[in-house]
């Protein structure tokens, strides 16, 4: 299984089973110290192995991050350039 924070990238690569969490990169399992959130996400992604029967399925994690993180994306992409 794959835990993804980049939906369009995952749709291109198409792993067998993925869970997309709409979180900033660096927080796929959520916020530091929030063990309950980490457990919920880990349980969901492990559960893909039981649920998924169609190859390439991408499930959507339903809980929102709760705040805008567009500025984080911009900083991240700045570092990700090819040079």
């Amino acid at each position, binding site marked *: 299984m794959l835990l993804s924070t980049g939906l369009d990238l995952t749709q*291109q*690569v198409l792993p067998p089973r993925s869970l997309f969490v709409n979180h900033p*990169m*660096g927080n796929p399992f959520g916020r*530091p110290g929030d063990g309950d959130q980490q*457990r919920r996400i*880990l349980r969901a992604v492990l559960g893909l192995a*039981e649920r998924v029967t169609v190859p390439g399925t991408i499930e959507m994690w339903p809980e929102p991050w709760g705040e805008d993180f567009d500025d984080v994306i911009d900083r991240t*992409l700045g570092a990700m350039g*090819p040079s």
Partner: protein
Amino acid sequence: MKYVERLAHRYGQQGFPPYQWTINTEAPLTPLRRPLAECRVAMLTSGGVSRCAAPSWDPDARNDFRLDVIDADAPADDFQVHDSYYETDSAVEDINCVFPIERLREFATEGVIGSVAERQWSGFMGRIYKRQHVLEVAAPAFAAELGRDEVDLALLVPA
């Protein structure tokens, strides 16, 4: 978030030719061979994670095929994180944000999964442009290691 579009825009601004993305139109699917509660689980993080006693990752790594073994019982406060491609503050504060080793151990104790594979993994971090090497050498070698440990489920976590 539209990473593909925004990366293409940034690459173009820097004068680079269009990036050749990997686009797969189909995926394999290996059915689970036993209930999750009996499965041995391994995780791979590509988030520049290493044990404190191990060398740190090059945060700007390119084509680095180093692969670290992380012992299943590694304490959560015995990790370092070096990766310039994402904001590592959360992972530094709590490694479970990118590599939930404590949560996985809890699930094994509670019987949600069968066991935590003795060898967990950190690798494939940074910028890797050698797609063919990944497909033909590095990924099959990693899969073989999982096979040696009789892993039933592998969870891949890009940061």
